[in-house]
Protein backbone atom coordinates (compact mmCIF):
# COMPACT_ATOMS: atom_id res chain seq x y z
CA UNK A 1 0.00 0.00 0.00
CA UNK A 2 1.37 3.42 -0.89
CA UNK A 3 1.73 5.63 2.16
CA UNK A 4 2.57 9.28 2.57
CA UNK A 5 5.59 10.42 4.50
CA UNK A 6 5.87 13.82 6.11
CA UNK A 7 9.39 15.25 6.04
CA UNK A 8 10.83 15.98 9.45
CA UNK A 9 12.85 18.96 10.55
CA UNK A 10 13.18 22.35 8.94
CA UNK A 11 12.29 21.78 5.32
CA UNK A 12 13.29 24.49 2.96
CA UNK A 13 13.87 24.44 -0.81
CA UNK A 14 17.02 26.53 -0.39
CA UNK A 15 18.82 23.75 1.40
CA UNK A 16 20.98 21.35 -0.54
CA UNK A 17 20.17 17.76 -1.32
CA UNK A 18 16.99 17.13 0.61
CA UNK A 19 16.69 13.38 0.79
CA UNK A 20 14.36 11.32 2.88
CA UNK A 21 15.66 8.27 4.64
CA UNK A 22 13.11 6.09 6.35
CA UNK A 23 14.67 3.54 8.60
CA UNK A 24 12.72 0.39 9.42
CA UNK A 25 13.86 -0.92 12.77
CA UNK A 26 13.36 -4.08 14.78
CA UNK A 27 14.31 -3.22 18.37
CA UNK A 28 17.67 -1.46 18.06
CA UNK A 29 18.60 -2.90 14.68
CA UNK A 30 17.96 -1.35 11.31
CA UNK A 31 16.31 -3.98 9.09
CA UNK A 32 15.45 -1.90 6.05
CA UNK A 33 15.83 1.57 4.67
CA UNK A 34 13.78 3.52 2.14
CA UNK A 35 15.59 6.30 0.34
CA UNK A 36 13.56 8.93 -1.42
CA UNK A 37 15.11 11.67 -3.50
CA UNK A 38 13.68 14.32 -5.77
CA UNK A 39 12.30 16.77 -3.18
CA UNK A 40 14.27 19.58 -4.72
CA UNK A 41 14.32 18.44 -8.32
CA UNK A 42 14.66 21.43 -10.64
CA UNK A 43 15.22 19.64 -13.95
CA UNK A 44 18.36 21.65 -14.63
CA UNK A 45 19.08 19.34 -17.60
CA UNK A 46 15.99 20.73 -19.34
CA UNK A 47 16.72 24.34 -18.36
CA UNK A 48 20.24 23.94 -19.83
CA UNK A 49 18.68 23.36 -23.24
CA UNK A 50 17.30 26.90 -23.17
CA UNK A 51 20.55 28.62 -22.13
CA UNK A 52 23.57 29.56 -24.22
CA UNK A 53 26.75 27.54 -23.70
CA UNK A 54 28.24 30.40 -21.66
CA UNK A 55 25.17 30.71 -19.44
CA UNK A 56 25.09 26.98 -18.70
CA UNK A 57 28.31 27.40 -16.67
CA UNK A 58 26.45 29.66 -14.25
CA UNK A 59 23.41 27.41 -14.25
CA UNK A 60 25.30 24.25 -13.27
CA UNK A 61 27.23 26.19 -10.64
CA UNK A 62 23.92 26.40 -8.78
CA UNK A 63 23.36 22.64 -8.62
CA UNK A 64 25.25 22.32 -5.35
CA UNK A 65 25.96 25.04 -2.83
CA UNK A 66 28.89 23.28 -1.21
CA UNK A 67 30.85 22.04 -4.19
CA UNK A 68 29.74 24.81 -6.50
CA UNK A 69 32.71 24.60 -8.86
CA UNK A 70 32.53 20.84 -9.42
CA UNK A 71 29.75 20.97 -11.98
CA UNK A 72 31.16 23.91 -13.98
CA UNK A 73 34.53 22.13 -13.92
CA UNK A 74 33.08 18.94 -15.40
CA UNK A 75 31.05 21.03 -17.85
CA UNK A 76 34.05 22.94 -19.23
CA UNK A 77 35.90 19.62 -19.48
CA UNK A 78 32.99 18.35 -21.59
CA UNK A 79 33.22 21.39 -23.89
CA UNK A 80 37.00 20.87 -24.19
CA UNK A 81 36.31 17.25 -25.12
CA UNK A 82 33.63 18.20 -27.63
CA UNK A 83 35.93 20.70 -29.35
CA UNK A 84 38.94 18.41 -29.08
CA UNK A 85 41.12 21.29 -27.87
CA UNK A 86 42.83 22.09 -24.61
CA UNK A 87 42.28 25.38 -22.85
CA UNK A 88 45.36 27.61 -22.29
CA UNK A 89 47.95 26.30 -19.81
CA UNK A 90 47.45 29.07 -17.27
CA UNK A 91 43.70 28.49 -17.26
CA UNK A 92 44.26 24.78 -16.56
CA UNK A 93 46.39 25.63 -13.51
CA UNK A 94 43.82 28.13 -12.22
CA UNK A 95 41.04 25.54 -12.64
CA UNK A 96 43.12 23.06 -10.63
CA UNK A 97 43.70 25.57 -7.82
CA UNK A 98 39.98 26.37 -7.59
CA UNK A 99 39.00 22.68 -7.69
CA UNK A 100 41.39 21.80 -4.87
CA UNK A 101 40.52 24.80 -2.69
CA UNK A 102 36.97 23.58 -2.91
CA UNK A 103 37.97 20.10 -1.79
CA UNK A 104 39.75 21.57 1.26
CA UNK A 105 36.75 23.59 2.40
CA UNK A 106 34.29 20.78 1.63
CA UNK A 107 36.26 18.13 3.54
CA UNK A 108 36.61 20.49 6.53
CA UNK A 109 32.86 21.07 6.43
CA UNK A 110 32.23 17.32 6.50
CA UNK A 111 34.74 16.81 9.31
CA UNK A 112 32.88 19.35 11.43
CA UNK A 113 29.54 17.67 10.80
CA UNK A 114 30.89 14.20 11.52
CA UNK A 115 32.26 15.58 14.79
CA UNK A 116 28.86 17.01 15.65
CA UNK A 117 27.03 13.75 14.95
CA UNK A 118 29.45 11.89 17.18
CA UNK A 119 29.06 14.42 19.98
CA UNK A 120 32.40 16.18 19.47
CA UNK A 121 31.13 19.70 19.14
CA UNK A 122 34.61 21.16 19.65
CA UNK A 123 35.76 19.39 16.49
CA UNK A 124 32.71 20.85 14.73
CA UNK A 125 33.54 24.42 15.80
CA UNK A 126 37.26 24.08 15.09
CA UNK A 127 36.80 22.53 11.67
CA UNK A 128 34.45 25.29 10.58
CA UNK A 129 36.69 27.96 12.06
CA UNK A 130 39.69 26.72 10.07
CA UNK A 131 37.52 26.50 6.97
CA UNK A 132 37.06 30.28 7.07
CA UNK A 133 40.58 31.18 5.81
CA UNK A 134 39.93 28.95 2.76
CA UNK A 135 36.79 30.95 2.00
CA UNK A 136 38.85 34.12 2.46
CA UNK A 137 41.15 32.88 -0.33
CA UNK A 138 38.11 32.38 -2.55
CA UNK A 139 36.96 35.89 -1.75
CA UNK A 140 40.35 37.27 -2.70
CA UNK A 141 40.59 35.29 -5.94
CA UNK A 142 37.00 35.29 -7.18
CA UNK A 143 35.27 37.99 -5.16
CA UNK A 144 32.84 35.42 -3.78
CA UNK A 145 33.04 32.97 -0.90
CA UNK A 146 30.68 30.58 -2.71
CA UNK A 147 29.64 30.32 -6.37
CA UNK A 148 32.99 31.60 -7.60
CA UNK A 149 32.07 31.84 -11.31
CA UNK A 150 35.66 31.07 -12.30
CA UNK A 151 35.02 28.47 -15.03
CA UNK A 152 34.33 29.36 -18.63
CA UNK A 153 34.23 27.20 -21.77
CA UNK A 154 37.72 27.49 -23.22
CA UNK A 155 39.39 28.92 -20.14
CA UNK A 156 38.68 30.74 -16.92
CA UNK A 157 36.70 33.89 -16.37
CA UNK A 158 39.26 35.85 -14.37
CA UNK A 159 42.98 35.71 -13.77
CA UNK A 160 44.86 35.12 -10.52
CA UNK A 161 47.41 37.73 -9.50
CA UNK A 162 50.97 36.80 -8.62
CA UNK A 163 51.09 39.38 -5.80
CA UNK A 164 48.39 37.40 -3.95
CA UNK A 165 50.34 34.14 -4.10
CA UNK A 166 52.56 34.68 -0.99
CA UNK A 167 49.49 35.37 1.16
CA UNK A 168 47.57 32.39 -0.28
CA UNK A 169 50.55 30.11 0.33
CA UNK A 170 50.97 31.33 3.89
CA UNK A 171 47.26 30.87 4.65
CA UNK A 172 47.39 27.28 3.35
CA UNK A 173 50.64 26.46 5.13
CA UNK A 174 49.12 27.74 8.37
CA UNK A 175 46.31 25.25 7.84
CA UNK A 176 48.66 22.23 7.87
CA UNK A 177 49.28 22.19 11.68
CA UNK A 178 45.50 22.43 12.14
CA UNK A 179 45.01 19.38 9.91
CA UNK A 180 47.70 17.62 11.98
CA UNK A 181 45.59 18.36 15.01
CA UNK A 182 42.47 16.86 13.42
CA UNK A 183 44.46 13.84 12.31
CA UNK A 184 45.61 13.31 15.88
CA UNK A 185 42.12 13.90 17.24
CA UNK A 186 40.63 11.21 15.00
CA UNK A 187 43.44 8.65 14.81
CA UNK A 188 44.53 8.72 18.46
CA UNK A 189 41.15 8.93 20.14
CA UNK A 190 40.05 5.52 21.45
CA UNK A 191 36.42 6.65 21.73
CA UNK A 192 36.28 7.64 18.05
CA UNK A 193 37.83 4.29 17.19
CA UNK A 194 35.16 2.53 19.23
CA UNK A 195 32.39 4.52 17.56
CA UNK A 196 33.53 4.32 13.94
CA UNK A 197 35.68 1.24 13.39
CA UNK A 198 33.85 -1.64 11.77
CA UNK A 199 30.69 0.50 11.51
CA UNK A 200 28.83 0.82 8.21
CA UNK A 201 31.28 -1.29 6.24
CA UNK A 202 31.21 -1.28 2.43
CA UNK A 203 33.25 -4.12 0.99
CA UNK A 204 35.08 -3.94 -2.34
CA UNK A 205 32.32 -6.01 -3.90
CA UNK A 206 29.68 -3.57 -2.60
CA UNK A 207 31.65 -0.72 -4.11
CA UNK A 208 31.60 -2.51 -7.46
CA UNK A 209 27.92 -3.44 -7.29
CA UNK A 210 26.73 0.04 -6.28
CA UNK A 211 29.39 1.73 -8.48
CA UNK A 212 30.33 3.99 -5.58
CA UNK A 213 32.77 6.83 -6.28
CA UNK A 214 35.11 9.22 -4.49
CA UNK A 215 36.30 8.97 -0.88
CA UNK A 216 33.51 6.46 -0.17
CA UNK A 217 35.11 4.04 -2.67
CA UNK A 218 38.70 4.90 -1.73
CA UNK A 219 37.98 4.10 1.94
CA UNK A 220 37.17 0.54 0.82
CA UNK A 221 40.53 0.14 -0.85
CA UNK A 222 39.33 0.92 -4.38
CA UNK A 223 41.80 3.52 -5.62
CA UNK A 224 39.65 5.26 -8.22
CA UNK A 225 40.28 8.94 -8.72
CA UNK A 226 39.50 10.69 -12.01
CA UNK A 227 42.30 13.18 -11.40
CA UNK A 228 44.79 10.31 -11.68
CA UNK A 229 42.93 7.87 -13.96
CA UNK A 230 41.83 10.27 -16.68
CA UNK A 231 43.96 13.38 -16.02
CA UNK A 232 42.61 16.79 -16.96
CA UNK A 233 43.49 20.41 -16.06
CA UNK A 234 46.97 20.40 -14.44
CA UNK A 235 46.62 17.26 -12.34
CA UNK A 236 49.22 15.38 -14.38
CA UNK A 237 51.73 18.22 -14.01
CA UNK A 238 51.99 18.10 -10.22
CA UNK A 239 53.11 15.41 -7.78
CA UNK A 240 50.46 13.91 -5.53
CA UNK A 241 49.09 10.55 -4.51
CA UNK A 242 45.68 8.91 -4.30
CA UNK A 243 44.71 8.20 -0.68
CA UNK A 244 43.16 4.82 0.05
CA UNK A 245 42.24 2.92 3.20
CA UNK A 246 41.25 -0.72 3.51
CA UNK A 247 38.58 -0.71 6.25
CA UNK A 248 35.50 0.44 4.31
CA UNK A 249 34.01 1.69 7.59
CA UNK A 250 33.20 5.19 8.84
CA UNK A 251 36.68 5.48 10.37
CA UNK A 252 38.39 4.80 7.02
CA UNK A 253 36.19 7.37 5.30
CA UNK A 254 37.21 9.98 7.85
CA UNK A 255 40.89 9.12 7.53
CA UNK A 256 40.75 9.29 3.70
CA UNK A 257 39.25 12.78 3.84
CA UNK A 258 41.73 14.07 6.41
CA UNK A 259 44.72 12.74 4.48
CA UNK A 260 43.31 14.18 1.25
CA UNK A 261 43.46 17.63 2.84
CA UNK A 262 47.28 17.38 2.82
CA UNK A 263 47.31 16.28 -0.81
CA UNK A 264 45.01 19.12 -1.88
CA UNK A 265 47.11 21.75 -0.10
CA UNK A 266 50.18 20.19 -1.69
CA UNK A 267 48.60 20.37 -5.18
CA UNK A 268 47.62 24.03 -4.75
CA UNK A 269 51.11 25.03 -3.52
CA UNK A 270 52.74 23.30 -6.49
CA UNK A 271 50.30 24.89 -8.95
CA UNK A 272 51.02 28.35 -7.57
CA UNK A 273 54.76 27.74 -7.98
CA UNK A 274 54.51 26.30 -11.48
CA UNK A 275 51.74 28.48 -12.93
CA UNK A 276 52.90 29.68 -16.36
CA UNK A 277 52.23 33.16 -17.69
CA UNK A 278 49.98 33.61 -20.69
CA UNK A 279 46.38 33.93 -21.82
CA UNK A 280 43.55 32.53 -19.72
CA UNK A 281 40.90 32.20 -22.42
CA UNK A 282 41.02 30.66 -25.88
CA UNK A 283 38.04 32.74 -27.01
CA UNK A 284 35.67 30.04 -28.23
CA UNK A 285 33.14 31.49 -30.64
CA UNK A 286 30.97 28.63 -31.89
CA UNK A 287 30.31 25.13 -30.66
CA UNK A 288 30.12 22.74 -33.63
CA UNK A 289 27.73 19.75 -33.69
CA UNK A 290 29.06 16.81 -31.72
CA UNK A 291 29.29 15.13 -28.36
CA UNK A 292 31.52 15.68 -25.37
CA UNK A 293 31.95 14.02 -22.00
CA UNK A 294 33.61 15.82 -19.12
CA UNK A 295 34.54 14.36 -15.78
CA UNK A 296 35.83 15.91 -12.60
CA UNK A 297 36.74 14.40 -9.25
CA UNK A 298 34.58 16.49 -6.93
CA UNK A 299 35.08 16.32 -3.14
CA UNK A 300 32.42 13.57 -3.09
CA UNK A 301 33.58 11.69 -6.21
CA UNK A 302 33.23 11.60 -9.96
CA UNK A 303 30.94 14.19 -11.61
CA UNK A 304 29.93 13.38 -15.20
CA UNK A 305 28.60 15.84 -17.76
CA UNK A 306 27.52 14.71 -21.21
CA UNK A 307 26.89 17.41 -23.82
CA UNK A 308 25.28 16.93 -27.21
CA UNK A 309 25.50 19.97 -29.51
CA UNK A 310 23.63 20.41 -32.77
CA UNK A 311 25.50 23.50 -34.01
CA UNK A 312 23.14 25.88 -32.24
CA UNK A 313 23.79 28.27 -29.42
CA UNK A 314 22.72 25.96 -26.60
CA UNK A 315 23.15 22.27 -25.76
CA UNK A 316 20.75 19.89 -27.52
CA UNK A 317 21.09 17.60 -24.51
CA UNK A 318 22.94 18.02 -21.26
CA UNK A 319 23.12 15.03 -18.94
CA UNK A 320 24.47 15.56 -15.44
CA UNK A 321 25.38 12.89 -12.92
CA UNK A 322 26.47 13.96 -9.45
CA UNK A 323 28.53 11.65 -7.19
CA UNK A 324 25.91 11.44 -4.42
CA UNK A 325 23.55 9.83 -6.96
CA UNK A 326 25.76 6.74 -6.74
CA UNK A 327 26.94 7.08 -3.13
CA UNK A 328 23.61 7.66 -1.40
CA UNK A 329 22.17 4.47 -2.92
CA UNK A 330 24.93 2.47 -1.22
CA UNK A 331 23.48 3.42 2.18
CA UNK A 332 21.08 0.56 1.62
CA UNK A 333 24.00 -1.78 2.03
CA UNK A 334 25.94 0.10 4.70
CA UNK A 335 23.19 0.76 7.23
CA UNK A 336 21.19 -2.49 7.30
CA UNK A 337 22.05 -4.65 10.30
CA UNK A 338 23.58 -1.75 12.23
CA UNK A 339 22.11 -0.14 15.37
CA UNK A 340 19.98 3.02 15.20
CA UNK A 341 22.53 5.02 17.18
CA UNK A 342 25.12 4.36 14.46
CA UNK A 343 22.76 5.14 11.58
CA UNK A 344 23.34 8.90 11.69
CA UNK A 345 27.08 8.69 11.24
CA UNK A 346 26.84 5.92 8.62
CA UNK A 347 24.42 7.93 6.48
CA UNK A 348 26.59 11.01 6.96
CA UNK A 349 29.79 9.15 6.09
CA UNK A 350 29.15 9.33 2.33
CA UNK A 351 29.12 13.13 2.82
CA UNK A 352 25.70 14.20 1.71
CA UNK A 353 24.57 17.59 3.00
CA UNK A 354 23.44 18.16 6.56
CA UNK A 355 19.73 18.42 5.85
CA UNK A 356 19.77 14.80 4.70
CA UNK A 357 20.03 13.63 8.26
CA UNK A 358 17.38 16.10 9.37
CA UNK A 359 14.97 14.14 7.26
CA UNK A 360 15.33 10.78 8.93
CA UNK A 361 12.59 9.02 10.80
CA UNK A 362 12.69 5.80 12.80
CA UNK A 363 9.72 3.50 12.25
CA UNK A 364 8.91 0.45 14.35
CA UNK A 365 9.21 -2.65 12.16
CA UNK A 366 6.14 -4.35 13.64
CA UNK A 367 3.68 -1.52 14.23
CA UNK A 368 4.82 0.91 11.53
CA UNK A 369 4.66 3.75 14.07
CA UNK A 370 7.11 6.62 13.92
CA UNK A 371 9.42 6.58 16.92
CA UNK A 372 12.07 9.22 16.39
CA UNK A 373 13.01 12.06 14.11
CA UNK A 374 16.35 13.39 12.88
CA UNK A 375 17.19 15.40 16.01
CA UNK A 376 16.50 12.42 18.28
CA UNK A 377 18.88 10.35 16.19
CA UNK A 378 21.71 12.88 16.47
CA UNK A 379 21.13 13.00 20.25
CA UNK A 380 21.16 9.19 20.43
CA UNK A 381 24.43 9.09 18.51
CA UNK A 382 26.00 11.71 20.80
CA UNK A 383 24.84 9.84 23.92
CA UNK A 384 26.46 6.63 22.74
CA UNK A 385 29.83 8.42 22.40
CA UNK A 386 29.42 9.90 25.89
CA UNK A 387 28.69 6.48 27.39
CA UNK A 388 31.76 4.93 25.76
CA UNK A 389 33.89 7.82 27.04
CA UNK A 390 32.50 7.53 30.60
CA UNK A 391 33.07 3.78 30.62
CA UNK A 392 36.70 4.34 29.67
CA UNK A 393 37.19 6.90 32.44
CA UNK A 394 35.73 4.55 35.05
CA UNK A 395 37.80 1.54 34.04
Amino acid at each position, binding site marked *: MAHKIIPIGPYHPLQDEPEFFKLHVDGETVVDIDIEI*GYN*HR*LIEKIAESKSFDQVTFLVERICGICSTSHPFAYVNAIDDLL*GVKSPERALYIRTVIGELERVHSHLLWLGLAGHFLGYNTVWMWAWRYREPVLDIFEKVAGNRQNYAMMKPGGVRRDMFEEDFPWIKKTLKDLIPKVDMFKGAVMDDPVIHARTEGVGVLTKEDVR*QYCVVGPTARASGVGIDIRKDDPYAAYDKVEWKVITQEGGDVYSKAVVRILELYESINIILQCLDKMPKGPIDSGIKDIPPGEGIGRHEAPRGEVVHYIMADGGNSPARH*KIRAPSYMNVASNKKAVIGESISDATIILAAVDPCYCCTERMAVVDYKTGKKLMDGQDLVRLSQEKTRKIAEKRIRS
Partner: protein
Amino acid sequence: MKREAIIENIKVRSGKDLVEFTDKSKNRFYFTINKKILPQIARYLFNEEKARFSTASGVDTRKAVEILYHFSVDDIGLYISLRVILEKPNLEVDSLLGLFKCAEWIEMEIHEMLGVNFKGHENLKHLLLKDDWPEGNYPLRRDM
Protein backbone atom coordinates in the same frame (compact mmCIF):
# COMPACT_ATOMS: atom_id res chain seq x y z
CA MET B 1 47.34 -2.60 -25.19
CA LYS B 2 44.30 -3.16 -23.02
CA ARG B 3 42.63 -0.29 -24.83
CA GLU B 4 42.96 -1.98 -28.23
CA ALA B 5 41.99 -5.36 -26.81
CA ILE B 6 38.73 -3.95 -25.42
CA ILE B 7 37.79 -2.32 -28.74
CA GLU B 8 38.59 -5.51 -30.61
CA ASN B 9 36.62 -7.64 -28.16
CA ILE B 10 33.53 -5.44 -28.37
CA LYS B 11 33.75 -5.46 -32.18
CA VAL B 12 34.08 -9.24 -32.33
CA ARG B 13 31.32 -9.88 -29.79
CA SER B 14 28.96 -7.45 -31.51
CA GLY B 15 29.57 -8.80 -35.01
CA LYS B 16 26.84 -7.60 -37.33
CA ASP B 17 25.04 -5.88 -34.47
CA LEU B 18 27.67 -3.16 -34.26
CA VAL B 19 26.17 -0.21 -36.11
CA GLU B 20 28.88 2.36 -35.64
CA PHE B 21 32.15 2.88 -33.80
CA THR B 22 33.62 6.33 -33.11
CA ASP B 23 36.86 7.06 -31.30
CA LYS B 24 36.24 10.65 -30.36
CA SER B 25 39.57 10.94 -28.58
CA LYS B 26 42.16 8.79 -26.84
CA ASN B 27 39.88 8.17 -23.85
CA ARG B 28 36.37 8.49 -25.28
CA PHE B 29 34.92 5.67 -27.38
CA TYR B 30 31.33 5.38 -28.63
CA PHE B 31 29.81 2.12 -29.84
CA THR B 32 26.35 2.16 -31.40
CA ILE B 33 24.93 -1.35 -31.05
CA ASN B 34 21.62 -3.10 -31.59
CA LYS B 35 19.64 -3.27 -28.39
CA LYS B 36 19.41 -7.06 -28.31
CA ILE B 37 23.13 -7.44 -27.57
CA LEU B 38 23.27 -4.68 -24.95
CA PRO B 39 23.14 -7.03 -21.90
CA GLN B 40 25.85 -9.20 -23.43
CA ILE B 41 28.28 -6.34 -24.09
CA ALA B 42 27.50 -4.69 -20.74
CA ARG B 43 28.18 -8.03 -19.01
CA TYR B 44 31.48 -8.33 -20.83
CA LEU B 45 32.57 -4.81 -19.78
CA PHE B 46 31.39 -5.12 -16.18
CA ASN B 47 32.40 -8.69 -15.38
CA GLU B 48 35.40 -9.38 -17.58
CA GLU B 49 37.03 -5.97 -17.94
CA LYS B 50 35.92 -4.88 -14.43
CA ALA B 51 34.61 -1.62 -15.86
CA ARG B 52 32.58 0.65 -13.58
CA PHE B 53 29.08 1.60 -14.68
CA SER B 54 29.19 5.38 -14.52
CA THR B 55 25.71 6.42 -15.64
CA ALA B 56 23.36 6.40 -18.62
CA SER B 57 22.16 9.35 -20.69
CA GLY B 58 18.82 9.31 -22.44
CA VAL B 59 18.45 11.58 -25.45
CA ASP B 60 15.30 12.27 -27.45
CA THR B 61 16.26 12.72 -31.09
CA ARG B 62 12.62 13.22 -32.23
CA LYS B 63 12.37 10.01 -34.27
CA ALA B 64 13.97 7.86 -31.62
CA VAL B 65 15.24 7.82 -28.08
CA GLU B 66 18.92 7.05 -27.68
CA ILE B 67 20.36 5.71 -24.48
CA LEU B 68 24.08 5.93 -23.88
CA TYR B 69 25.41 3.58 -21.23
CA HIS B 70 28.67 5.01 -19.94
CA PHE B 71 31.31 2.66 -18.57
CA SER B 72 34.59 3.73 -17.04
CA VAL B 73 37.64 1.47 -17.22
CA ASP B 74 39.44 3.28 -14.43
CA ASP B 75 42.87 1.69 -14.54
CA ILE B 76 43.47 2.98 -18.09
CA GLY B 77 41.23 6.06 -17.89
CA LEU B 78 39.01 4.85 -20.71
CA TYR B 79 35.39 6.00 -20.97
CA ILE B 80 33.20 3.79 -23.17
CA SER B 81 29.68 4.75 -24.20
CA LEU B 82 27.38 2.05 -25.55
CA ARG B 83 24.62 3.68 -27.55
CA VAL B 84 21.33 1.93 -28.26
CA ILE B 85 18.76 3.57 -30.52
CA LEU B 86 15.11 2.87 -29.64
CA GLU B 87 12.77 3.75 -32.49
CA LYS B 88 9.50 5.40 -31.43
CA PRO B 89 6.97 4.23 -30.42
CA ASN B 90 8.59 0.95 -29.35
CA LEU B 91 10.64 2.33 -26.46
CA GLU B 92 11.76 -0.81 -24.69
CA VAL B 93 15.13 -2.22 -23.74
CA ASP B 94 16.42 -4.88 -21.35
CA SER B 95 17.13 -3.74 -17.80
CA LEU B 96 20.71 -4.07 -16.59
CA LEU B 97 19.62 -4.31 -12.97
CA GLY B 98 20.46 -7.99 -12.81
CA LEU B 99 24.04 -7.14 -13.67
CA PHE B 100 24.70 -4.29 -11.24
CA LYS B 101 22.56 -2.66 -8.56
CA CYS B 102 23.51 0.89 -9.51
CA ALA B 103 21.31 0.66 -12.63
CA GLU B 104 18.21 0.91 -10.44
CA TRP B 105 17.89 4.68 -10.07
CA ILE B 106 19.05 5.70 -13.53
CA GLU B 107 16.58 3.32 -15.20
CA MET B 108 13.78 4.74 -13.05
CA GLU B 109 14.89 8.23 -14.05
CA ILE B 110 15.02 7.52 -17.79
CA HIS B 111 11.65 5.79 -17.50
CA GLU B 112 9.92 8.81 -15.99
CA MET B 113 11.78 11.46 -18.01
CA LEU B 114 11.65 9.85 -21.46
CA GLY B 115 9.11 7.06 -21.17
CA VAL B 116 11.42 4.14 -21.84
CA ASN B 117 10.35 0.76 -20.48
CA PHE B 118 13.12 -1.35 -18.97
CA LYS B 119 12.26 -5.01 -19.31
CA GLY B 120 13.04 -6.86 -16.08
CA HIS B 121 13.03 -3.79 -13.81
CA GLU B 122 10.29 -4.59 -11.31
CA ASN B 123 10.08 -1.26 -9.57
CA LEU B 124 9.75 1.45 -12.24
CA LYS B 125 8.04 3.99 -9.97
CA HIS B 126 8.81 7.71 -9.88
CA LEU B 127 12.26 8.66 -8.64
CA LEU B 128 12.44 12.43 -9.06
CA LEU B 129 8.93 13.42 -10.10
CA LYS B 130 6.06 13.41 -7.65
CA ASP B 131 3.91 10.29 -7.40
CA ASP B 132 0.80 11.90 -8.91
CA TRP B 133 2.66 13.22 -11.97
CA PRO B 134 0.25 12.93 -14.94
CA GLU B 135 0.85 9.79 -16.93
CA GLY B 136 2.28 10.08 -20.43
CA ASN B 137 4.05 13.39 -19.72
CA TYR B 138 7.76 12.99 -20.19
CA PRO B 139 9.70 16.16 -19.31
CA LEU B 140 12.81 15.43 -21.36
CA ARG B 141 10.92 14.64 -24.56
CA ARG B 142 11.30 17.21 -27.34
CA ASP B 143 7.55 17.73 -27.56
CA MET B 144 7.22 18.76 -23.90
